[in-house]
């Protein structure tokens, strides 16, 4: 499993793994060390008792040879090669050995002091822990008592303990990691809700981040909502002010235009009048274009924007039928199945209005609205059955103020505005020849990343 440090889940998981590994490892090491020390102490105590018992049971016979008054109380010393051995030596006399030591002998080097000493050395059945002490006698040679036990007995006890401890600690580690994962999942659940809230905001289902969150996140959510609302209000205020400015300019511009038209009737002033008229029209185009661009919500692309084709189209068709009563405007196919479009409803209406009005001016009888859903974008098409335009003009008609040589062309702004809005959303507006000769305008609006 690859843990990504860029995610909170990954960071928490890695922290828990490290903590459990270090903690359990320390417990494992400490427990084994303590247990080993404890078991060794007990072992040493027991065998030192055996040394003292052996010394207590040893007597000298009349010739000075050592002998036991009775066998040692631990029966393991009588079982051959049991790993428990004893030996009594007196230099120059017979050496006594336990019944278990059917071969070999113990090194009596450890028995050199009245104090009981121990060390590891080779024994009859492998490495042994040998304990030794001496006891002075009436003669010159002291008695040397050696008790030895195979080291494997002690190691087996420690090994069994280590094995059991390891199993239990591994189970404990699994339980800790499992509960850690549960805590991470529970603790991060509000973030999943936050992600859904952001997706809803992003897709336009909600106007702000909605839901109940823990205090720490709620504070962030409240601040984000306040920021988004404030931002929207500033944008809206800017739009209103731009609109007011445009409206306040248009009436004086209308008076100027009228004055210029009157001057046009006067031969002496007609040249100036034509300049006034041309400049007035230029000002009007600039006002219309920049006002439309200001109104466009495209700058807010991806945040809370969603439009339904069937909400936008019916009022537009009704209005277009009044403007172009001889033209049949209709939606191709079942428009109720039309997808949601990641676009401000106002912008969608602005785009479609411009395209429908343009198509209505040129159509002979029919204007058709179509839609097509791709994986990551929606295509809207407006097709008319008019004369169409030459492919060489597909680009030039988008120039601001460009008009074909026909009064139906109007100010020539509509297509430019529609394309600019589409491009604000990362999409485009392209023109092509319709199947039966008219013009086909195709608007592509991509679906923002993160939306499904």
């Amino acid at each position, binding site marked *: 499993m690859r843990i990504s440090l860029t995610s909170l889940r990954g960071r928490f998981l890695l922290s828990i793994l490290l903590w459990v590994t270090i903690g359990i490892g320390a417990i494992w090491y400490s427990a084994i060390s303590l247990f080993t020390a404890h078991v060794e102490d007990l072992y040493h105590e027991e065998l030192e008792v055996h040394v003292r018992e052996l010394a207590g049971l040893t007597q000298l016979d009349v010739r000075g040879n050592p002998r036991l008054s009775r066998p040692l109380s631990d029966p393991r010393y009588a079982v051959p090669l049991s790993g428990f051995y004893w030996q009594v030596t007196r230099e120059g006399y017979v050496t006594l050995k336990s019944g278990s030591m059917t071969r070999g002998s113990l090194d009596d080097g450890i028995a050199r002091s009245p104090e009981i000493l121990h060390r590891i050395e080779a024994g009859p059945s492998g490495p042994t822990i040998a304990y030794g002490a001496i006891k002075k006698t009436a003669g010159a040679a002291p008695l040397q008592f050696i008790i030895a036990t195979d080291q494997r007995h002690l190691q087996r006890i420690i090994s069994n303990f280590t094995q059991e401890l390891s199993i239990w600690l591994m189970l404990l580690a699994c339980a800790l990691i499992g509960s850690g994962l549960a805590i991470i999942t529970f603790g991060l659940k509000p973030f999943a809700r936050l992600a859904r809230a952001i997706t809803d905001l992003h897709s336009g289902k909600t106007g702000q981040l909605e839901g109940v969150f823990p205090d720490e996140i709620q504070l962030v959510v409240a601040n984000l909502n306040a920021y988004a609302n404030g931002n929207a209000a500033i944008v809206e205020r800017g739009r209103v002010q731009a609109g007011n400015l445009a409206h306040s300019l*248009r*009436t004086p511009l*209308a*008076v*100027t235009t*009228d004055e210029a038209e009157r001057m046009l009737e006067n031969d002496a002033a007609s040249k100036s009048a034509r300049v006034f008229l041309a400049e007035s029209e230029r000002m009007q185009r600039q006002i219309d274009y920049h006002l439309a661009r200001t109104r466009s919500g495209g700058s807010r692309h991806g945040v809370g924007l969603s439009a339904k084709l069937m909400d936008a189209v019916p009022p537009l068709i009704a*209005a277009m039928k009044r403007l172009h009563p001889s033209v049949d405007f209709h939606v191709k196919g079942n428009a109720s199945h039309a997808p949601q479009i990641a676009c401000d409803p106002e912008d969608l209406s*602005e785009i479609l209005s411009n395209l429908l009005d343009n198509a209505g001016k040129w159509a002979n009888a029919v204007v058709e609205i179509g839609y097509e859903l791709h994986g990551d974008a929606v295509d809207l098409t407006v097709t008319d059955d008019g004369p169409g335009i030459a492919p060489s003009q597909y680009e030039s008609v988008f120039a601001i103020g460009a008009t074909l040589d026909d009064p139906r062309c109007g100010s020539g702004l509509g297509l430019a505005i529609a394309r600019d809005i589409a491009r604000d959303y990362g999409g485009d507006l392209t023109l092509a020849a319709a199947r039966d000769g008219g013009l086909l305008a195709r608007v592509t609006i991509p679906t923002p990343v993160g939306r499904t």
Partner: protein
Amino acid sequence: MRVLLVEDGAELRRRLSERLTTAGFAVDTVGTAQDARSWPDILQISAIILDLGLPDGDGLELLRFWRARGDRVPILILTARGNWRDKVEGLNAGADDFMVKPVRFEELLARLHALWRRGDGRSPMILDIAGIALDPVARSVSINGTMIELSRKEFGLLHLFMRRAGHILSQTDILEDLYALEAERDHNAIEAHISRLRRKIGKDRIRTLRGLGYRFEK
């Protein structure tokens, strides 16, 4: 033809009124929604040019008021509000056309005549009856291809007769179409205008029906 101009800008109102009068219309003007709402003879109006931004109310409300009352007079919105939302809202509230200021007067005139054409069942822009051709936008009249000169009132009178060719028009009908509400209306002047018109287009074209009025013969 009478046009009611609802425009709050005094200067633009004055100018448009002058231009429309020059073009042969009888023009009534108001500057507030209240005055427009209480206009007494709306049924005699041939078209309303309506501004949306009025000082005491929204032109759209006024439009809805007239339509809700059943007034079918053609209404052309002439406004400084230029976005499509306003256009769609205005058209769907019952406006017949929508123009954004500033407009060239010729275009305004053409759009007004287009409205009437539409209202008359798409009659052609140029009226041509029994050799008399009248172009309301170019304000020209020809008889069998020969142009003739008419005064403003004579042109308005002929336009009315040709629009209602075959119908009897009383003197009141003619006065209401040719004169603004507050203009001085003189029955004798109508007779004088008709008399002069007859001299120019032929006296048999307009027949007098005693006690009823006049009829333009098809």
